């Protein structure tokens, strides 16, 4: 029992005392950070609306999308993204599976949520968000409709809420006896690396440094969850 407690403390120390958490991301990302704040401010009324309606934490939601807002502002290429949207609508994710919109969501991310919700049409929030009327069969019409939804800020927020709700069903442990930092870290990581991954995988990924602002790769990378936690601390 004592050993178990000690292990937990050690785990928490290793897990959350990574040097990157001491980073000043506001200073580091400078202009891109400021632009993301502006985008976040534009999205906030809608985030609040859906968070209130679905009893979720709007600040947590804003924090976990914040690293994507930074990337979106810096790397958005309307011609390339538009080209891939057409390709996806006609030919599917074999030909194009790419990040769309301010919240940088991929079609496969949307499909995974839609399919999960299809199994839970009785849930009030599924109906509230309108996902009970979303068709998931893989055809041109449904892919076009999905692209149109993902290209819309309000629908992106609905997908975000849906991901948190689905995560609550799939991994309820995240919300049990977790500190605010642990909870946010895991939700942010799930958002970034795959909400439908195992909890062990999400935990293992949470401290990995894959996040950067360059187009392809960068010499210095950061933890997505650390950036999100930094933002959360600013918001609360």
């Amino acid at each position, binding site marked *: 029992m004592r050993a178990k407690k000690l292990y937990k403390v050690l785990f928490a120390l290793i897990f959350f005392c990574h040097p990157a958490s001491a980073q000043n991301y506001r200073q580091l990302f400078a*202009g*891109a950070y400021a*632009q993301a704040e502006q985008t976040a401010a534009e999205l906030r009324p809608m985030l609040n609306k859906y968070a209130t309606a679905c009893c979720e934490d709007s600040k947590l939601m804003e924090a976990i999308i914040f690293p*994507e807002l930074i990337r979106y*502002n*810096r*790397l958005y*290429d*309307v*011609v*390339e993204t*538009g*080209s*891939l*949207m*057409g*390709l996806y*609508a*006609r*030919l*599917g*994710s*074999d*030909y*194009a*599976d*790419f990040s769309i*919109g301010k*919240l940088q*969501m*991929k079609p*496969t*991310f949307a*499909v*995974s*949520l839609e*399919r999960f919700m299809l199994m839970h049409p009785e849930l009030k929030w599924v109906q509230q968000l309108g996902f009970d009327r979303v068709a998931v069969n*893989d*055809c*041109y019409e449904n*892919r*076009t409709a999905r*692209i*149109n939804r993902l*290209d819309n800020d309000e629908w992106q927020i609905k997908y975000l809420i849906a*991901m948190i709700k689905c995560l609550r069903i799939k991994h309820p442990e995240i919300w049990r006896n977790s500190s605010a930092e642990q909870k946010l870290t895991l939700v942010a990581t799930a*958002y*970034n*690396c*795959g*909400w*439908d*991954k195992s909890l062990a995988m999400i935990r293992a990924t949470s401290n990995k440094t*894959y*996040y950067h602002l*360059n*187009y*392809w*790769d960068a*010499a210095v990378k950061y933890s997505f969850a650390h950036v999100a936690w930094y933002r959360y601390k600013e918001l609360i």
Partner: protein
Amino acid sequence: MGAVLIIAAQGANAQFLNKLKQKAQNALNKAVQGQSANNTTQSAETGSSGTATASSADGPKFNPSEYGHQVFELQPDEHIVYGEHSLRIVNNQTVVKVITRAGGKFYLYENDKRSGPYNTPPVDKLDSWANSTEIHSAHGKRTDWQPYVVRGVLTVDGKDYGQWMSISAFYHNKEKKKFYAVAFKVEGLSPAYYFITEKGTKKIPFAAPELLISDNDEHAGIMIYATQYNAKTDEDRIKYVQNDDFYIVKPDGSAIGPLAAVQASRSYLDNYGNYIEISYSRKAVYMNGKQVYTFAQDSNGNGRFFPSAKGETGAWFERGSLFFTDGTQINHYVLQPAVSVENGKDIINWLTIQDGKVYACKKAL
């Protein structure tokens, strides 16, 4: 000094190789996902590569032969690696490049010439890859001006452009040896503002912190509020009014405007030097202040307007579709649109992939 140069060169080389490696890995992941198309394993990543799901080719009908010609046809069991294609205009000719995969190897089509096999996707040969830069930004191009200024003197490409009190905006294209700077100094007892380029220095009414620069780097401008543009005194300049009419001031001192505020969500200078504004709230595109296109109701304005040089006609690109001002619509068949000029006519070119064939299409704007 020599050692510094070698280290710098090694650093740049390592960065290049790192970038290439990452891009190739991404392309490889995509290609592998394509192979397992019938695998129903779901992945829900938002920020990294996802797993492909089964798909079917269907949708609107389009006859690419009506707008262009077939560049090449894929061989049996050959697939395009998604996202790895480019169309570029070189001397008003289209250059199409596409990466494919067959039998576990990769190939590059450059127009109808196929090269390979390659063990990894030859992404470094794609124009879209070559054009991408690490500071690519949707919010203005900029270069750190500090290395160019010593004791206030601005020196670019070996030429001295005088001493300045402050530089508010700077961009340098080293390949083209072009640059744009906005700077100020005190003349008499008043601040004087200047637009500086490799062509010379021009006094302007005021300064701005952000440069607008066209994709081809041939045009630049800054936005100055009308109250500042027309100010007679320094006090007038400070008492400016936002959300009012404004001017786009160019490096030669000329200006577009006054332009009315149209609640623009995005704005930029196109490759002809026109000032384009996209207003989501008004569902309209404005060119040099004049409304030139109105969005369809289901559009949210995440697109790009390609105007003709005169600005009287054009085409709106959004979600793989082109909507021409003459009413023609091409839905979901458009990849990598780019403008060229043929016999004095403005042409929009694009790629289309249909039934394993890659087409180069075009239409007059």
